[in-house]
């Protein structure tokens, strides 16, 4: 039987598909029997999708764009 702390350590590898099929199967069997680990893995899946959803973009200032374009052209 796998220990819960070891399952938690490998939760991201399971979610990202980085485990061998045999090891992933052992973890999934553990999740079927362990409510705590099952909930933790669900939480980590939600966390992964939320981190993907954070908008990391910034609206550029016109002056900055123009400065960079001018510098790039100067070197040609």
């Amino acid at each position: 039987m796998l220990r819960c702390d070891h399952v938690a350590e490998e939760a991201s590898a399971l979610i990202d598909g980085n485990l061998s099929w045999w090891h992933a199967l052992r973890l999934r069997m553990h999740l079927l029997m362990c409510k705590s680990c099952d909930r933790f893995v669900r939480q980590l899946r939600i966390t992964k999708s939320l981190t993907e959803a954070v908008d990391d973009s910034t609206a550029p200032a016109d002056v900055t764009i123009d400065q960079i374009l001018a510098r790039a052209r100067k070197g040609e």
Partner: protein
Amino acid sequence: MTARDDESALVAALKAGDREAFSEVYRRHNAAMVRLAGSILRNRASAEEVTQDAWVSVLRKIDSFEGRSLLAGWIFTILANAARSRARRDGRSVSFNDGLSGGDGLADAFDGTGRWVQVPELWEEITPERIVAGRGVLEHVRDAIDALPEAQRAVLTLRTQQGLEASEVCTILEISEGNMRVLLHRARVAVRNRLDEVLK
């Protein structure tokens, strides 16, 4: 239009000197570039300067971009090389492997036999739009990402938010794939712990 078609069109427009195309690429990547340069240089003003220099290099070299990797991977490689050169010139060295010290943020979650001390909460109806403690869930996530140690934040930003391949992230940060996975897992656990606190 697929993401690849979209990227090909964007690269073609950049090569043609299209201002709107450059503005779009800048919008997508600049904030993450300044943060990565800041992680290498540990100085906000230098990070902004190096990032602007990197953009100039990107535009000057865009004709040599052959599309063998994602445009983002190519841009971040140019930036990381520029930031490292600057750090070396300033007599500083940075290793993202340093971020592996310390635990994974779950030390207190288990008893001596490796069992959970408390059953984790069942997170229901967690959507990006939900308001918790007066703020949107995504704002809490953004704060948690900002508070991460440099190496964890760099991996999470490049792999998750900028969508780079694992191999590209490893090359840019000069870390092994095993270390990248550990850092990504710890970053997710830290964000999960923060959300768990605000959701209680």
